[in-house]
């Protein structure tokens, strides 16, 4: 999908929200494009849910403005906004049948009963619950209840659908299936989805773009691959996936290559990166575990810097995950000196290629890591 041609449907402009002296959302500005699957990702307490609730009109911003489809929402109450929400608890009305639940939003805003009923039935079909309209919510499973909540929100044909941790209450298998289904659903209905999640995998799997939030602010806003491969800060690098960080000082930065001297490593690390940075700056080099190669260190393969980066070490721990094996290799003293390497188990082997206490050589290409200065 090409997002650049689309126009923004939500414009959040310098929005803050204070609960007493605490800023839950602190001066956030961002745009969400029409038809986009947008994720707000962050640890609990980062302000993502508060931001979502402000979009829904369930919280009033302390400062700043929110525009939805070109209209200022500051004075528009929740029940008149062109957005609908799927709540974390699903909030299915327990005393109404499934069909009444789905039709409620239409009925209460004055849609004729016959039209409301047929649209509700259509919406149930959309979420594959046709035939269950006369059931009561306590006769449904958790996954089915979530579909009711989805249908109930979609039946109103909102401009934006807001989803607050929609998958967190489902078990792992169902969660994975629902991810795909939500993406398909979004493509079918063509409505902008804004999802709040603390699960980075979920955000990576579903979203077109992700805003990573921490302590009320947006740290980085990017499509999933960019977020993963080029995190803007240590927080993002650490929050999305798993990462090895080497703290050091820039010794040289030219021709698109940055050399970083890491005190605990025998040789400086080289990173090919187009980044303006002056020598002497304290930085971190971040490398993902699966980008690192591991090989037996028999003393013959002593790679030079032009071939990439290489660090000798000793295998300290091995975690077998079936599809992957994670090696923890000691390259220096202290908690920072333990490097994680993820190796896919291509062959069905029973003998481990590396054992505890093995001397190994870790190597990675110069374009595999990133230099972070924050």
């Amino acid at each position, binding site marked *: 999908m090409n997002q650049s041609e689309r126009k923004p449907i939500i414009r959040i402009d310098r929005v803050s929200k204070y609960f007493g002296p605490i800023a839950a959302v602190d001066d956030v500005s961002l745009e969400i494009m029409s038809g986009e699957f947008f994720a707000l990702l962050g640890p609990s307490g980062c302000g993502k849910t508060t931001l979502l609730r402000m979009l829904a009109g369930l919280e009033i911003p302390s400062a700043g403005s929110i525009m939805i489809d070109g209209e200022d929402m500051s004075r528009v109450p929740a*029940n008149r906004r062109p957005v609908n929400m799927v709540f974390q608890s699903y909030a299915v009305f327990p005393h109404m049948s499934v069909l009444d639940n789905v039709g409620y939003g239409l009925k209460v805003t004055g849609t004729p009963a016959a039209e409301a009923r047929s649209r509700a039935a259509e919406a149930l079909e959309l979420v594959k619950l046709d035939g269950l309209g006369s059931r009561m919510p306590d006769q449904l499973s958790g996954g089915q209840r979530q579909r009711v909540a989805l249908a109930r929100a979609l039946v109103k044909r909102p401009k934006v659908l807001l989803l607050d941790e929609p998958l967190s209450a489902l078990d792992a298998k169902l969660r994975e299936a629902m991810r795909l289904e939500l993406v398909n659903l979004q493509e079918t209905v063509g409505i902008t989805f804004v999802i709040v999640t603390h699960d980075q995998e979920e955000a990576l799997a579903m979203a077109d773009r992700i805003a990573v939030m921490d302590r009320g602010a947006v740290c980085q806003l990017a499509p999933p691959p960019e977020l993963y491969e080029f995190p803007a800060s240590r927080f993002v690098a650490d929050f999305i996936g798993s990462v090895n960080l080497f703290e050091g000082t820039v010794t040289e930065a030219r021709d698109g290559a940055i050399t970083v001297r890491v005190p605990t490593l025998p040789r400086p690390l080289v990173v090919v990166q187009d980044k303006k940075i002056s020598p002497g700056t304290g930085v971190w080099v971040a490398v993902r575990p699966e980008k690192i190669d591991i090989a037996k260190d028999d003393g013959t393969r002593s790679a030079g810097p032009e071939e990439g980066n290489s660090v000798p070490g000793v295998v300290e721990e091995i975690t077998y995950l079936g599809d992957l094996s994670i090696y923890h290799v000691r390259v220096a003293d202290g908690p920072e000196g333990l490097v994680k390497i993820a190796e896919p188990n291509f062959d069905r082997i029973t003998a481990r290629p590396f054992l505890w206490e093995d001397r190994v050589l870790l190597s990675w290409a110069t374009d595999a890591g990133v230099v972070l200065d924050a």
Partner: protein
Amino acid sequence: MSGVRPRRAPPGPLEYTRQTWMRLALLATFVFLYAPIVTLIAFSFNDSKRNIVWRGFTTKYYEKALANEGLIEAFMNSITIAVLSTVISTVLGGLAAYLLWRFRFPLKPLYEGTVSLPIVIPEICLGVAMLVFFYRVGLPTGLPWPLNLSQITIAHVSFSFPFVAVVARARMASFNPELEEAARDLGASEWAIARDVIIPHMRPGLVAGAMLAFTLSLDDFVITFLTSGPDTVTFPVKVYSMVRFSVTPEVNAASTVLIVITVAVTVLALWIQNRRTVDNPG
């Protein structure tokens, strides 16, 4: 199922109802609770004026009670007061519960405590206070029925609505606030939210509270005695005045009718509650 029936296993540690001593205790409790009532009902059919020893079966005291105009009038008064005060108490109690659940305001704990105060204040104090109050206010007497019952009704509302409020408030503790937000998000106004989401959730509490209010009002003696005027008599007060002369089976008969009505109303209320509410929040 075929073959030899397996021997009954000995009672497990938590199967209290299969243990003899527990069954005996249960039986004793039932006797203690219901023997007086069963006796009262049995003796309403006793063919004896003094009603001390059993002298044969008759229903003539039912006829007599039904023909006793004073008793019927008192009975009608009691029912009217009970219905009126139940309706008013349920509305007021429901509103109080909503207020206490929904809003935050200064001195809220004080207000919450004050609302439930009539539950703990001794009835006699409340009755005397009401007596003085009505005397000071000087409500007109000698009004036509049912306006002549307004003093008692007001008094009954004042001690029964806190029960409704407390029960309904407790019920709201299990309310999922996201339900309210979901309704608002779907376009519901405050009124629609109250009507479609909050009251349906509160309903079991309101029904239970209304049942309490009804029975409290129906059999209240102390406060009624002190607040009733000279010419408004309720059923308990009437029974009391009859007992002062002699305990005839007529009193038993009237009481039996009252028990039947109370039980019928309770059963009806329970039935309505079970039929109408799917009691499963979330």
